[in-house]
């Protein structure tokens, strides 16, 4: 094809291009994109790594890359309105005298009082109690008002031991030994000075206003051999009543899950790369860990290898935001899921109210990830009393209750459409992969080909 030329014919017969008629594209570098340039310049000012809340902004292979193959002629569905579809979920049946009986497979993750406001903590507790699920304390100990609001409360035993109290241990319904978090696997907690109010400092035995960097290793035990003894200690102190969870940030999933099961966990909580946070080094959000879906299949396989699938329950978390995600997680082998960020969004996070305060933080509703600043425009991740007052506890609890209810109904809808009268009967054969990556990762056949990519 002849080359297209514009303008007058030049001396050699080709037409020259007059500059004023041509608007060259402004081309950005792929390697030095505006984001990379901003990142370099922010670090040039800060002198340290960037810290922020929310979660990774990256796209990752996820449950969204799967679809359900529901009933048709070859399988009979259940009626949506009449036929029962059980959602009850039992956690901790392996060793505990009192396993947790939940009415839904959706639980609320550990988010510290400190990262969250008091109102947010109470609202989550109330909503969970109404639907019949559990909430979890966090890196800062148990808040009395949270214990009161939440019928089933999981007490975290963290490396920092901030506010750790054996009385609270005995008041708990389950214990969660935190080894890692999906949003910052391999590092300890962070709470920047602006959120360390008098009250928070008191509860954590810290000076007010310090940039709190909490420990990553537990102070009193080191490896898996010690952890066996530590779990015995926790069980001795609670008369073997409570289920013990071990929370892992997804990384070396297979080995970690095997060790957690072998040291005697009742429940393994696996937190994937998409997991939310109150404050994490940004590079950890984006460049450490394994995405949730991949972590789940690896964890399930590890338990299968040990023959412990039936004994040890698996909770998966990290980026779960819809009933479809929950149903897919269950189908791939999770016993329950946990949500953090999604519950905060139901509370009001990123809602388009108090827009001018989002703007003051240099962001906007829908793109806020400024939890680390302590200036949450909607009163969730703040210790500022005026901001916190923006979160009406009862209304917020209603919203979270509604959302949890919606998630549960969505899972039931999918289960019934797949012909299952119990949501825990969903299985990998109910799924197809939409991408070759998802097929390769999960072992679920690719749509159309009905073959597993890579096999």
């Amino acid at each position: 094809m002849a080359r297209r030329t514009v303008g007058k014919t030049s001396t050699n017969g080709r037409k020259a291009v007059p500059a004023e008629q041509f608007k060259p594209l402004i081309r950005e570098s792929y390697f030095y994109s505006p984001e990379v340039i901003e990142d370099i310049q922010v670090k040039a000012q800060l002198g340290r790594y960037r810290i922020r809340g929310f979660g990774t902004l990256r796209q990752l292979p996820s449950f969204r890359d799967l679809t359900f193959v529901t009933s048709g002629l070859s399988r009979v569905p259940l009626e949506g309105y009449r036929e029962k579809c059980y959602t009850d979920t039992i956690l901790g049946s392996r060793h505990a005298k009192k396993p947790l009986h939940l009415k839904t497979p959706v639980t609320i993750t550990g988010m510290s009082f400190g990262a969250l406001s008091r109102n947010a903590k109470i609202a989550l507790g109330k909503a969970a109690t109404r639907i019949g699920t559990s909430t979890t304390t966090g890196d800062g100990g148990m808040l009395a008002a949270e214990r009161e609001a939440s019928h089933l409360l999981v007490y975290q035993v963290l490396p920092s031991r901030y506010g750790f109290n054996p009385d609270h241990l005995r008041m708990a319904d389950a214990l969660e030994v935190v080894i890692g978090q999906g949003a910052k696997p391999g590092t300890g907690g962070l709470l920047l000075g602006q959120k360390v109010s008098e009250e928070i400092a008191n509860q954590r035995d810290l000076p007010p206003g310090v940039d709190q960097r909490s420990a990553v290793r537990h102070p009193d035990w080191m490896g898996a051999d010690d952890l066996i003894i530590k779990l015995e200690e926790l069980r001795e102190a609670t008369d073997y009543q409570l289920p013990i969870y071990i929370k892992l940030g997804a990384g070396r999933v297979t080995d970690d899950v095997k060790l957690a099961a072998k040291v005697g966990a009742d429940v393994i909580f696996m937190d994937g790369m998409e997991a939310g946070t109150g404050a994490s080094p940004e590079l950890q959000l984006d460049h450490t860990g394994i995405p949730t879906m991949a972590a789940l299949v690896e964890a399930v396989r590890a338990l299968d290898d040990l023959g412990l699938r039936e004994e040890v329950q698996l909770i998966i978390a990290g980026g779960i935001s819809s009933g479809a995600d929950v149903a897919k997680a269950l189908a791939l082998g999770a016993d329950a899921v946990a949500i953090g960020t999604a519950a905060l969004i139901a509370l009001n996070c990123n809602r388009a109210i108090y827009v001018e305060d989002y703007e003051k933080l240099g962001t906007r509703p829908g793109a806020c990830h400024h939890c680390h600043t302590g200036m949450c425009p909607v009163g969730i991740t703040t210790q500022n009393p005026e901001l916190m007052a923006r979160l009406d506890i009862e209304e917020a609890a209603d919203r979270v209750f509604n959302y949890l209810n919606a998630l549960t109904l969505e899972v039931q809808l999918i289960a019934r459409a797949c012909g299952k009268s119990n949501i825990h009967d969903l299985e990998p054969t109910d799924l197809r992969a939409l991408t070759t990556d998802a097929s390769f990762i999960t072992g679920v056949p690719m749509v159309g080909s009905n073959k597993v990519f890579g096999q």
Partner: protein
Amino acid sequence: MVKVAEKTLEIDCTRRTTSEVNKAIYAGLERGQSVMVRNPASRHNLGVGINHPGKVVFDGNVGYFCAGMLKHADVEVRGNCGWSVGEDMMSGSIVVRGNASAAAGAAIRGGILVVHGNAGPRTGISMKGGAIIIGGNVDYMSGFIMQKGVFIICGNTGEALADSMYEGKVYVRGKVAEFGNDAVTAELTAEDKALLRDLLTKYKVAGIPKPTEFTKIVSGKKLYNFNMKDYELWRVAL
């Protein structure tokens, strides 16, 4: 065998599970008895979760987590102990006649731990209150990220003593192998001297040395908030 005398309950660990021993300890204390635990034989998790006042003696060596999460009671170990004796203690007291292994008094928030012999690495790690007195030496990373409380070492210390401590006071009589990040010396005040005198006299540790023999160590507070001027410090701390 369980012998119930008037005032003292004697529990023999032989052929009893740890749970049985612990339950017998709780029951004895609740009845107002002193408890003597025979043949502890380095068993782990003895006396864990005690939540009642009274006196408990372990007549021999104990394993990991002895008297972990202690509240109210006064515990004595007539022997050595394994890792993390008295971890997460809230109140009461623990006196170890022999040596303690790693992480003695980890993350305690109250009460007092006295070790007459030496203690291992990470003694008093993550301390949040209360007091720890060591008659002999401690090893590396003792007092790591200490938040509050009083930590007295009558002998020498290992490396990285009181690294990144937030608050609290450390007193060392012997040689400090290496100061931890942001751990700095301070003048002994009259108040410090009175505190040392009272505690050392009360628990008769290390022949009751004179308070003036101790060096006081506190937080330099340079790691409270990130500051680029202190980049060298933060490079290891962040």
